[in-house]
């Protein structure tokens, strides 16, 4: 059984952890921070979730998630139409913030997962893996789709007595996409993928 030394991310205490032991995880003995988490078939499971996530992401962005029917006049909204309307109202900063957190970050997260995991599944190290893993962490931190779903519910209630609100097909894609993204984050083995990057002398 091979081993390696790692320091806890949150308190810097050094631990010896096993390498290549699928299904094992470990926490820091001092502060309880997660040290490693090797899921069984991590690459395949995360890849499956990323493929499902990519399809759901397209559906969630192409189709409207809510329609507003007021005396026969119907408006529909997609994620991007919200971003566009904010931009038209000279709310560029908010428009940008929503674009990044609800569209760009989750989209890039899924793209990077696919780009990293397809070659990894075929037993090859992806080109520019180091850069991709670093980018992935940035996008993960700003990807907030689950918060957006709560926003949809709040908007539904606020408009309930103004007009007829009809949930669109995208709303269901949203709900499942959030579960899929959470699952992908849980099965992804970052440390294992970093081991594919060669250490220079």
């Amino acid at each position: 059984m091979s081993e390696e030394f790692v320091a806890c991310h949150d308190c810097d205490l050094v631990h010896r952890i096993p390498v290549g032991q699928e299904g094992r995880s470990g926490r820091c003995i001092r502060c309880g921070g997660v040290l490693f988490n090797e899921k069984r078939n991590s690459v395949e499971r995360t890849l499956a979730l990323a493929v499902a996530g990519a399809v759901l992401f397209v559906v969630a962005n192409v189709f409207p998630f809510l329609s507003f029917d007021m005396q026969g006049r119907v408006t529909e909204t997609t994620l991007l139409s919200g971003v566009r309307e904010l931009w038209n109202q000279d709310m560029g900063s908010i428009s940008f913030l929503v674009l990044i957190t609800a569209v760009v970050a989750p989209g890039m997260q899924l793209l990077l997962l696919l780009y990293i995991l397809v070659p990894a599944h075929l037993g090859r190290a992806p080109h520019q893996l180091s850069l991709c893993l670093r980018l992935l962490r940035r996008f993960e931190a700003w990807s907030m789709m689950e918060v957006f779903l709560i926003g949809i519910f709040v908007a539904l209630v606020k408009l309930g007595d103004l007009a007829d609100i009809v949930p669109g097909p995208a709303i269901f894609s949203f709900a499942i996409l959030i579960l899929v993204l959470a699952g992908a984050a849980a099965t992804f083995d970052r440390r294992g993928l970093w081991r594919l990057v060669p250490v220079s002398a």
Partner: protein
Amino acid sequence: MSAPESADSIAGHTARSLGMVSCHECGLLVRADPEGGLACPRCHVRLHSRKIDSLSRCWALLLAAAVLYVPANVFPIMTTTYFGAAQSDTIMSGVIYLMQTEWPLAVIVFTASVMVPLVKLFVLAYLAWSVRVGSTSNPGDRTRLFRVIDAIGRWSMVDIYVVTILVALVRVQALANVHAEIGAVFFGAVVVTTILAAQAFDPRLIWDSAEAAQARKEARASAEAGGLPNGNLA
């Protein structure tokens, strides 16, 4: 999922005390260069044992967030026009409206938009202060507190998303429309600055300062026990 198990540590040493640095990007444990300025041999980013200027960056962002919090709550975040009647809503008036219709959602929005930014500000300020004064009490609990604060910050975005959805949905020309207002810009800035403040804080400082304070205390105790003629130490 198997139960997490503790890996054995090397007699409770930190990477820093062993003269090593853990790469903040890829997690590789590298022997530190005494000169400093070493690049990670795996991912080639510049290595540093602790986040650079962690406390000053954290304080600056907390101060900015605290200042922005006032206009974010005072100014309206949106104006709804419905059959000619315009109504402006602040974060709080939106919560009050929800309370009359769906109180569980009102609780969620109040927690996410009002409580979370405030709690984040106070807890991060407390953590930064506890590091500054060299507190030795419960570093484990303070680290867990930091992890919670770091995880909940994103939920404050809810109100920004609600405005986005309403703006996109309610646009029946003269009959009904929703306009985003300046309060939303300030509120978005609060969310971003508190998230950045949490990212700037380095929880390892909690352990560093606790260890340093503990070492000072022990040095003082042994100096007293040894009866050294130095009254200032007591």
